[in-house]
């Protein structure tokens, strides 16, 4: 009897709640963005359509002051940063964010904000370099920002891409992964890893004294390692040389013990490698230096990619003599490049305690790219999600005043990343521990490399 009564009570309750709940429905997308992903959407096409629609409306009405939109209250533009501020990758996240912040401070203080009237504010969240955490943090702030100026980490960007596409939010990935180039919601800057690798190999073998040397690779066993190796293979094909040994080591992960390179170096030494293209993060550059320092019989040249560098390494003797770093731009503090002179001034003014740092520069340039897109969006009178994508597709060429190569933007299918690289060698007396060897080098055939 008792049983029946409480069941009836429950039923009445549930029914009334369903009615109540029904009023509480909430559509995912404020307005006209793409519907939730029902059947595996190939989103490029969808988004293209969407933005074409808004294009039309833009053309018909003259742009006025932008309407308030998510992250924009009519005065302040809020930009998200999802980056590890804790854990081992904070070494990279912190200077990146400092670069974002320094540029934004400059923008607000000296230019009065976007279009001289809308100051920019950063919302920094700790992603812990973990897709799950990043997803939580993304959900927490995505309704409150116009765009993300920095999202760090290939796994994190990968994990957030479906959300970015669904919400039609744009984000600046803080890595040079070429997979980003064709994603309509991402704002990559800088030449991809493959470009660095192609140019580095071509540059090295273009020097007469290096002719006939044996080329090898040493790469982490992950996607990042593969991108570098793909570039080396492309260059080797074009140069008509072989890659004698392709050595691998486990990519850094929360569970990998410290890396020692003894067997890999044995493998490379066995193949008589003269020059090793090294794809790594700083954690692994340190033990490589140790092993090569202690192996007095074998002194190969090492070509590294920009993420393998830390200022600390400038003091290491072996690297000083046998290491070249492929990156972009010029020496820190090179006054002959206007963008660099400005970067130094802004760093000294707004981030005086920050050490000169490659990642700081990258963060600074990301903010610079976002600045140009925001100016375009404000000029078009639309800071909404669709308006931002629209602005990114129509911004034309993103210029970095020579610190990085110009990046031709447009619809994602037509984007053209910069194709030149610069080469540095360790120098403890230089500000970033790096001294420029050659600037803006471009292999003849680098343009033939197709990004999927």
């Amino acid at each position, binding site marked *: 009897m008792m049983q029946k009564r409480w069941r009836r009570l429950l039923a009445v309750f549930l029914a009334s709640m369903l009615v109540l709940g*029904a009023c509480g429905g909430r559509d995912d997308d404020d307005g006209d963005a793409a519907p939730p992903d029902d059947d*595996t959407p190939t989103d490029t096409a969808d988004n293209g359509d969407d933005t074409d629609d808004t294009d039309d409306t833009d053309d018909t009405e003259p742009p006025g002051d932008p309407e308030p939109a998510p992250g924009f209250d009519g005065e302040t533009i809020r930009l998200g940063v999802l980056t590890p501020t804790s854990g081992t990758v904070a070494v990279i996240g912190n200077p990146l964010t400092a670069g974002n912040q320094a540029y934004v401070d400059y923008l607000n203080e000296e230019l009065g904000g976007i279009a001289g009237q809308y100051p920019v504010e950063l919302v920094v969240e700790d992603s812990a370099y973990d897709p*799950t955490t990043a*997803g939580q943090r993304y959900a927490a702030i995505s309704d409150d920002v116009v765009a993300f100026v920095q999202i760090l980490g290939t796994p994190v960007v990968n*994990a957030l891409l479906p959300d970015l596409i669904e919400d039609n939010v744009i984000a600046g990935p803080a890595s040079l992964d070429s997979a980003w180039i064709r994603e309509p919601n991402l704002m990559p800057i800088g030449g991809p890893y493959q470009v660095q690798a192609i140019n580095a190999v071509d540059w090295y073998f273009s020097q007469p004294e290096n002719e006939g040397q044996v080329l090898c690779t040493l790469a982490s066993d992950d996607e990042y390692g593969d991108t570098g190796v793909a570039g080396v293979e492309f260059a080797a094909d074009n140069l008509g040389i072989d890659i004698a040994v392709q050595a691998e080591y486990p990519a850094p992960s929360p569970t990998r013990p410290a890396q020692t390179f003894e067997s890999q170096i044995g493998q490379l030494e066995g193949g008589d490698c003269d020059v090793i293209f090294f794809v790594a993060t700083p954690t692994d550059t340190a033990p490589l230096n140790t092993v090569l320092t202690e192996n007095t019989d074998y002194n190969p040249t090492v070509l590294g990619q920009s993420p393998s560098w830390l200022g600390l390494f400038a003091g290491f003797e072996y690297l000083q003599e046998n290491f070249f770093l492929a990156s972009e731009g010029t020496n820190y503090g090179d006054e002959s490049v206007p963008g660099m002179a400005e970067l130094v001034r802004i760093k000294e003014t707004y981030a005086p305690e920050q050490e000169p740092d490659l990642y700081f520069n990258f963060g600074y340039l990301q903010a610079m790219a976002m600045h140009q897109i925001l100016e375009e969006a404000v000029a078009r009178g639309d800071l909404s999600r669709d308006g931002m994508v629209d602005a990114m597709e129509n911004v034309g060429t993103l210029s970095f005043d020579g610190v990085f190569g110009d990046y031709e933007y447009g619809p994602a299918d037509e984007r053209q990343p910069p194709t030149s690289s610069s080469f540095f060698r360790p120098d403890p007396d230089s500000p970033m521990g790096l001294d420029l060897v050659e600037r803006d080098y471009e292999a003849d055939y680098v343009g033939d490399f197709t990004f999927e």
Partner: protein
Amino acid sequence: MRAVLAPFGRGPSGGRPSRNLVLDYRDDLRIFPDRWARIGLVLLAFLYLWLPSQQVSDAGLRTLSTIGIFAIGAIGLNLLTGYTGQVSLGHAFFIGVGSYTAAYLGAELGWPFLVYVPAAALIGVGLGVVIGPFALRLRGHYLVIVTLGLIFLGRHIFNNWTSVTGGNRGTQIRGADMSIGPLDFSGLELFGTTYSREQSMFFLVWALVALTALLAKNLVRSRMGRAMQAVRDRDLSAEIIGVDLARTKVGAFAWSSAFACVAGVLSALQIRFAGADDFGLFLSITYVAIIIIGGVGTIFGAIVGSIFVVGSEELINQNSRSDWLGPLVSTGPTDAGWLSVGELNAILFGAFIVGFLLFEPRGLAALWFRAKAWFLTWPFSY
């Protein structure tokens, strides 16, 4: 002990005894034996339908769904560790298997929701049956370390079985079917109202929490469940009174990993990404922490523990710029705090584990039982 712990007999009223008495074996077996439990149930149903309405933001709902997903996995671990006494640091491996199952069967092959979720659970059962026998041979510490090894083995497989897992890059989960009959939980439409993904996910997850909790509750009251507890309390004695040790241990592993795989499926659907590094030791430890903090050997504790662990982390994240946390915590490189948000969270996480084990080893559930006992036995509160 049993009398106090078991959800009690009749409420204190009329001429009946003022304290909960178990008068009959059936009293012990009731899941919702008295009026208070029923009122609680109605309240929960109310919350279930009310929370996803406009009152809670999408971000908040996402947190609640995460809590629910952890609760399902933790219920599974509790069956193994709390009820059967087999300590496992390998739970994350099964969560990973579930996630990749959703990615491959659900998103890649496009199987329907009602097929790939049971499939994931069956895969879990299968793996449990394979791994369970190890627990027969190894005890205590050795078992802990072997289950730890499972995580490393799993990570290696996840990273190398590229056609299924996407390898090192991980795999995105886009467009997996999420419909049960006419209800599509990727964007629920009911009575002409459209719900957001977060709202729909909340409905789905917590419905499954209720389902798994009920299932687990029934399981532990069954012959199997009593055998499990006998094995936990003293496996030798259990064996002597006729409990089949092998069957019980393997069965516990199978149930536990089936639950974990379902939790993995849900987490894949929520995060829409699966990468090998997500299913590491840290996730396993989080699960163990949840059942310790919530209460080892209670279904209810697994849920409370998830609320506590996930909720406290979210609380810190949201208040990292507040007056009371601001000076301690730095939210970025230009902020002057001493610890980063992640560091503070990890330290608190560790401190909670240590604190609960030192001062309340039976977890939050024990606090609840104690409070309940205090009220029920009032004024004789001893």
